[in-house]
Structure formats: structure tokens, C-alpha cells
């Protein structure tokens, strides 16, 4: 029976950054992640934490540790486009759930970074499924601005936050209306009024109207107003997206990214011409709400075809625990290519939608999301097509460091592989 020392490893060996070794992954089918076609028999070299080369005929540096990937696939790690990773151990156990800080009295100022706990089990479980980076957002409560989200890595170390305060998160549509007094009119009014208050605060006006914002909230919104941080907005309906595009014209510096966007296909030309990128839910196809009447699994394919920059995310869809669904969702979009009248993604584009595209949308595409030279060494070796259901990650490298792949679920699996008790109770079996 295998024994996984992941907890001890995480606490001891990786508590300080490990100096990354030189690794050469040879002989695999290599996917760069930028939408280009896979290359067979290629080599990926990682040194000092970064990818230094990936391609056919790349030489293995002297002294490199070699990982034979013959018959396997090598890709950038999955960049999960929208999650609540590390914000909950058990969703329904309040003490372990840090998703929403809405009752703190603050809104935009909330910084989720210190709540992201890499020792929570979703890190290990999703790491072993090949997810290496994630966009982590707070949940909104009682306000349209939920606070500042982060980009995290899934490395087995004590430092999960790659980039704190990487974006502000806001909610529009039904959720936003509910948080702004019951009407979408309230959402738009709150949005304008809160941003104006932030401007008053910045101008040092004595008349700073702090009805809606505390000073800390105003500081956070100034970053949004100036375009220094992105504004991710949960919005599902076509009309809500169009009205947001209008609102954006009043605040032209704001870098909006739409999240969810189940009806995005209905306004795809407008999204494309406004150059608003989208982190969309891949498989919503039911009218769960009246703002999702047009939901279809062809949404992402149609937006992509119209020229929208679109990645896969999973807002409010088991987004704290099941980041491992990301590859399955991408695979489903590929399957649509063979459904008459449906619009899916090519395999290459589908993989880009869970690697380079979300990294680009979040403004970190220069560092993450592909195997181009110079990118951070987040690399996964898979025992088959990474979008196929039967495939597993066999090697996961984050920041150039090979990761342990054990987790608590595997310990339970091993204890109960044969459920009947032996000479001692199961409690002694470990």
C-alpha cells in the first residue's frame, strides 16, 4: 500500500522556496498552450523555475534531470479561469468558509489573499489533477463590489499567492440587483456613485461622501478607475452586458472582464468590438434564471468565432473544490464540433482556453499559461490526451519544482481498497 507524505512534505520540505532544478522532459507530445498544434517527440527544458525551451530537436542540457514522456502528453499546467480555491475546506461549515467578507462592513477593500489557505485539501486534490494556477475571487454579499481577488499557484508550499489584489470583483445582473436594493437600476446607480465617491476621496474633497464607501474601499476602487487593476464582473444576460458596455464608456479607463456570460453569444459582435474579454462558464445550457434564457454550450465557440477573447471559468459551479473539471469542460467544447449546428472549439483552442487565454485575460500572460521560453515552469505530464476522461496527470511541476501528487482522498482510497477489516481496525491501517 502506498503511503503519501504530502502533509509532511508540504510543511517541511517546501516551506521555503526550493531552488528549482534543471529538468528536461523528453519524447512527449508537447502542447505549447497558445492554440498551436501539438508537437510529437518534443522536449521541454525547465531551468531556474522557468521554461527555457520547448520544441522538437531541443537539446537536453548537461546535468539536467530527464523525465521520459514517451507516449505521454506535456502541456502547460491548467490555469483555472475563475475559482474560489483555498477559500473553503467544507463549503457548508462556516468556520472553514472564507468566500464572503460582506458582513465586515467593507466592500471593494476586501483583499482575499490572506484567506487563501494552501493547506486546505482542494489544493492537493486539484494539483494532482494538473491544475497549477487559479484566479481566486471573493463572493459578494450586500454590495456589488466583492473585493480584490488574487492569482494563486497550487504548489505544495506555504506561499500560495502569486499576485495579490490582481483584480476587483463585482456582480451585476440578478445577483447585483439583489445586492443593490432589488433592481438593476440600483446596481448602475451604486456603481456610478461608488466610483464618484472614490474620485472625491482621491481629490481630497472635504465633501467626500462616505455613505457607500469607507476610505479603504475608495482606495481599492481608485485602482479600478485608473485601470491599474482589472474589474471582473459577474454578468449572465445579454441586456446586462450591453448596458455594462455603455457604462464602460463613462469610465473609459476601466478594464472590464465579463465572468459567466451565459448569453454572451447573443452580443458577441459588441463584445468583440469593445474588446471586452470573457471568462465564461463552459457548459451552462439551461435557463437557470431569466437572464440565462439563451444559455447554450455553443456560447464559448460562438463568441470565439466572433472574435471575442474567451477563456473557461467556473463561477459558482463547485468553484472551491472541483477545479479538476476544467479539462472535462474543455473536452466537451471539442465534442461540440461533431454536433450538427453546434459551435465548439478545436482541440488546440480548447486547451488554450484553459491555459494561455485566461492568463492573458488576467494580464499575466507574459509569465504564465504556455510553454514558450521565459514563462514560469508550470508543466504537466499526462498519461494521455489531457482533455479525455480517462487521462491523469503523472508529473506536475510548478515554478520549476516537481510536486507531490498525494492527497487525503488517496489515503482514504488506500485504507479502504479492501474494505473488510483485517487483524486490526482500519484506524491502524496507514
Amino acid at each position: 500500500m502506498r503511503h503519501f507524505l504530502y502533509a509532511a512534505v508540504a510543511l517541511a520540505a517546501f516551506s521555503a522556496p526550493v531552488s528549482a532544478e534543471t529538468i528536461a522532459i523528453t519524447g512527449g507530445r508537447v502542447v505549447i498552450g497558445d492554440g498551436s498544434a501539438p508537437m510529437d517527440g518534443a522536449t521541454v527544458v525547465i531551468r531556474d523555475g522557468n521554461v527555457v525551451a520547448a520544441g522538437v530537436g531541443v537539446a537536453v542540457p548537461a546535468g539536467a534531470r530527464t523525465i521520459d514522456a514517451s507516449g505521454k502528453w506535456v502541456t502547460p499546467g491548467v490555469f483555472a479561469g475563475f475559482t474560489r480555491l483555498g477559500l473553503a475546506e467544507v463549503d457548508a461549515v462556516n468556520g472553514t468558509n472564507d468566500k464572503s467578507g460582506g458582513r465586515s462592513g467593507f466592500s471593494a477593500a476586501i483583499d482575499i489573499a490572506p484567506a487563501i489557505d494552501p493547506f486546505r485539501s482542494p489544493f492537493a486534490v486539484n494539483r494532482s489533477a494538473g491544475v497549477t494556477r487559479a484566479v481566486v475571487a471573493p463572493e459578494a454579499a450586500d454590495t456589488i463590489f466583492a473585493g480584490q481577488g488574487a492569482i494563486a499557484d497550487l504548489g505544495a508550499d506555504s506561499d500560495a499567492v502569486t499576485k495579490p489584489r490582481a483584480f476587483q470583483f463585482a456582480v451585476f445582473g440578478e445577483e447585483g440587483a439583489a445586492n443593490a436594493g432589488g433592481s438593476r437600476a440600483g446596481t448602475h446607480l451604486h456603481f456610478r456613485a461608488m466610483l464618484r465617491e472614490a474620485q472625491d476621496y482621491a481629490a481630497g474633497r472635504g465633501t467626500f461622501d462616505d455613505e457607500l464607501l469607507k476610505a479603504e474601499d475608495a482606495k481599492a476602487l481608485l485602482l479600478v478607475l485608473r485601470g491599474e487593476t482589472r474589474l471582473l464582473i459577474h454578468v449572465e444576460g445579454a441586456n446586462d452586458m450591453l448596458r455594462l458596455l455603455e457604462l464602460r464608456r463613462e469610465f473609459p479607463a476601466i478594464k472590464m472582464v465579463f465572468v459567466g456570460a451565459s448569453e454572451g453569444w447573443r452580443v458577441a459582435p459588441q463584445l468583440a468590438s469593445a474588446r471586452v474579454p470573457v471568462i465564461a462558464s463552459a457548459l451552462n445550457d439551461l435557463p437557470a434564471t431569466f437572464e440565462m434564457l439563451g444559455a447554450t454550450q455553443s456560447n464559448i465557440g460562438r463568441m470565439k468565432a466572433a472574435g471575442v477573447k474567451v477563456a473557461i471559468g467556473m463561477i459558482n459551479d463547485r468553484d472551491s473544490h472541483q477545479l479538476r473539471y476544467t479539462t472535462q469542460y474543455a473536452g466537451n467544447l471539442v465534442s461540440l464540433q461533431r454536433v450538427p449546428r453546434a459551435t465548439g472549439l478545436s482541440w488546440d483552442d480548447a486547451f488554450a482556453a484553459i491555459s494561455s487565454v485566461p492568463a492573458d485575460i488576467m494580464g499575466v500572460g507574459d509569465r504564465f499559461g504556455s510553454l514558450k521560453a521565459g514563462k514560469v515552469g508550470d508543466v504537466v505530464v499526462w498519461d494521455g490526451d489531457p482533455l479525455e476522461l480517462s487521462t491523469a496527470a503523472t508529473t506536475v511541476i510548478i515554478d520549476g519544482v516537481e510536486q507531490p501528487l498525494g492527497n487525503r482522498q488517496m489515503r482514504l482510497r488506500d485504507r479502504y481498497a479492501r474494505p473488510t477489516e483485517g487483524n486490526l481496525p482500519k484506524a491502524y491501517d496507514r
Partner: protein
Amino acid sequence: MAISKAWRSAYLVLPLALAACSNAEGPKSASSAPAAKAAEKPPVPFPSTYKAYPGVATAIRNVTIYDGEGGKIDNGVVFMSGGKISSVGGPDTAIPADTLVVDGSGKYVTPGIIDIHSHLGDYPTPSVEAHSDGNEATSPTTPEVWAEHSVWPQDPGFSRALANGGITSLQILPGSANLMGGRSVVLKNVYARTIQGMKFPDAPYGLKMACGENPKRVYGSKGRMPSTRMGNIAVNRQTWIKAQEYKKRRDSGKEYTRDLGMETLAGVLDGDISIQNHCYRADEMALVLDMAKEFGYKVSTFHHAVESYKIADLLRDNGVCSAVWADWWGFKMEAYDAIPENAAILHNTGACVIIHSDDENQIQRLNQEAAKAQADGRRMGINISDAEVIKWLTYNPAKAMGISDKTGSLKVGKMADLVLWNGNPLSVYARPDKVWIDGALMFDASDPKMRPVSDFELGQPGEGDVK
């Protein structure tokens, strides 16, 4: 989208505003029915009016067949006529004249997929409060309610389950707020104007029961019993004692007063109504099995059953199925020990496995969930053939619902409920190409007219879209 509505049953967050009720234990009588005599079994009310739609004699040939009972035929032929499976065999199987022949080259045939745990219709989309009809959360035991009286036949979810999931039959359950949540209803996945028009003819009823967190939280938060797991069992046992007394009186030949809840429970004790028991934890399942022995009933299936792997031997020995997800985990405390190898360990131990959804989205890809569970087993050294895995979605749920004599496998004489997939259904790249129910073509991916559109979606954005 917001938290999936199906989580209202699995995860269940209920508004606390529901009126408290002083009746702490035992079912309430829903009505004071007139006195009845034993031996007069009243006719089943709300009978099925489902009738198979007309089909033409059709043969699919050159196709890979998974028969639903663990069999596989390469390059095979399935022939259906008169709404039934007429023959299944290899390439030499005779195809009568005047038969529509479908070429299945590169494609796969399975029996229609069956979901034993769905809330389509009683928690339909749109998930508005006005449609929230799955939990009669006003008393911990409500065996008197019937899910069919809550199911909205215009739920758009039925069409997605058909077109994307190949679902041909499904059991709609009440939610899990209550220890005894009410009767289930088994449906054919064919739209009708009335729920009677969807009811699977002569399918037995099930009784939804629930262990664990949900009942004790819902009623404990109202200051009522049960507020603990021991309260859960106590209320159940008190209720079963009453059911035994009711049955005794009913069977005595003397006059007795009908009681809707007691009729359902007596039906369980008679063996006519199956127990469909939401239960996550292994220790609680073991307690339920002993409670069933105490009162002389049998549990058909533990639903959700994320810890079944811990007692796979016990479940095997008791002949109880586990209806499970591939990998749901961590959303509530009793789901904390869920592992993706649950199904494989159960199968390997010889216990019955069913993959269920409890979800309007995952019902569209039960085949994919099964494939993930199969792969997780393979990685721990448990190899389960594709043909066996298909059984988790077809024959096993049919058996656990008491309809395996009619559907669930491709055997001659059974209902011609089957799916033609455009690839191996255990691949992420496969989708239903055509679906037949009782021999009638009800979905055809290549024909926009053969994609059902519920009343709700008519005239709406995306009407008739591929979804």
C-alpha cells in the same frame, strides 16, 4: 449560474422562514379519508396515460453494442419493431425487409440512460422560488406526499437530459429535508401535457428517505425533533411502529381509516414500494440496514452514498445498491470523505453500483461521470470493462427502480429505449446522435425538428437552439 438548484437536495439550504409546526414526530394525516376495508386495494390514482409514440421498424447495423448487462458486440445489429427490441446480434443478424436501416459505423449503441436520482420537474429551471416544489419541509416525515404532484412537465431540463445525456427514463424524487420525503415517480423522458402522460407505465413507487445532516438541521433549526442523528433514527422508528400497526389493522379485515402517509409506509412493508435512501456516511447506512431488519423492509438503494466504499462488503451482503457521483466532495461535512474510487471499490467488492446525478447539469453527462469513475478505478488497479461500466447507467438503476423487466438492457422483448452515440460513450468526445424511446425516434442531432422544445422555451431567445 447560482448554486445549482439540485444542491437544494444534496446540500440543501432552506430558508428559515418556513412556519414551525408542533407535530414533532410521526406523519400527519393529509386527509381524513373515509373508512376502508382491507383487501379492497383501491385503484392506483393518477394512472399513467403514457403511450409510446409511433415508430418504424428500424435496424442499426455495423455498430458497437453495449447491451447494458455487461455484454459487448462488435460490428453488431440492433433491430427494433413494434416499440420493442426484436433482435440483437452480430453482423449476420437478419434484418427483415421494409426496415429502416441506420448505418452505425464508428458509432455505439447503449440502452437508454437511466437516472435514478433527479429533481427535474420538482426543482425545475428556471430555478425560481415559485418552482421550488421538492421539499415539503413542514414535518420531518411526509410519506403522504407524492413527487408527481410537484413535477412541472414543461421543465426545459428534460430536453437537455435527452439530447445531451441520452436519458430515456428517470426517477424524480422529493428532496432530502425530511426523514421520509414522500413517494418518487418514475418517468419516461418524453414531454407530455400532463405528468400522467410522462409516467412510466406500471413502474413501482419508491419512498425517498434521508439520513444525516439535512433533516436534523432543517427541524433542529425550528426547535423541533429531530435535531440530532439519534433523533433522526428515533423519529423513523416511531413512525415505522405506527406503520406496522396500520398494516396490521388494514390486514385484519376490520374497518379502518385510510391514511395517505401510512398507505405509503405499509406499501413499503408489503414490498410494493422501494426505499430510495439519501445517506452519505457509512456508519449511518449500517444503522439504516439494521432499522430495516427491525421493521421488515428492504433498502433498494443508498443515494449519494459517498462513503459506501468503507462498507462495500456489508452493502454487497445485503444486496443494496449505491447510487453515487463520480467525484463530488467537500461541499458539506458528511461529504468530506468522498473519494473518486468509490464506485470502483464497490464494484470490485461485488456490490451494486449506479451513477446518479441529483443535478440538472450532470444528468446530461452521466456517461462521462461513469468514465471518470472507471478511470479512477483503473489507476488503483481495478480494471472494469466499458461494457460493465455501462451497466451502472442502465441495467443497475432499472433493477433498483423495479423496471428491469421492461427496460435497462438490450434484450429481446424489452422496450426499445436506446441511444446511438457518435463515438464511445465513455469518451468526452461522444454525444448522442439519435435516441429512441419505445421504438420511436425522439431525438436526432441532425434534424432540428427532432429536438424537443418545452412550452417555457417557445418564443424565447435561443428557442430550438442546440443547447
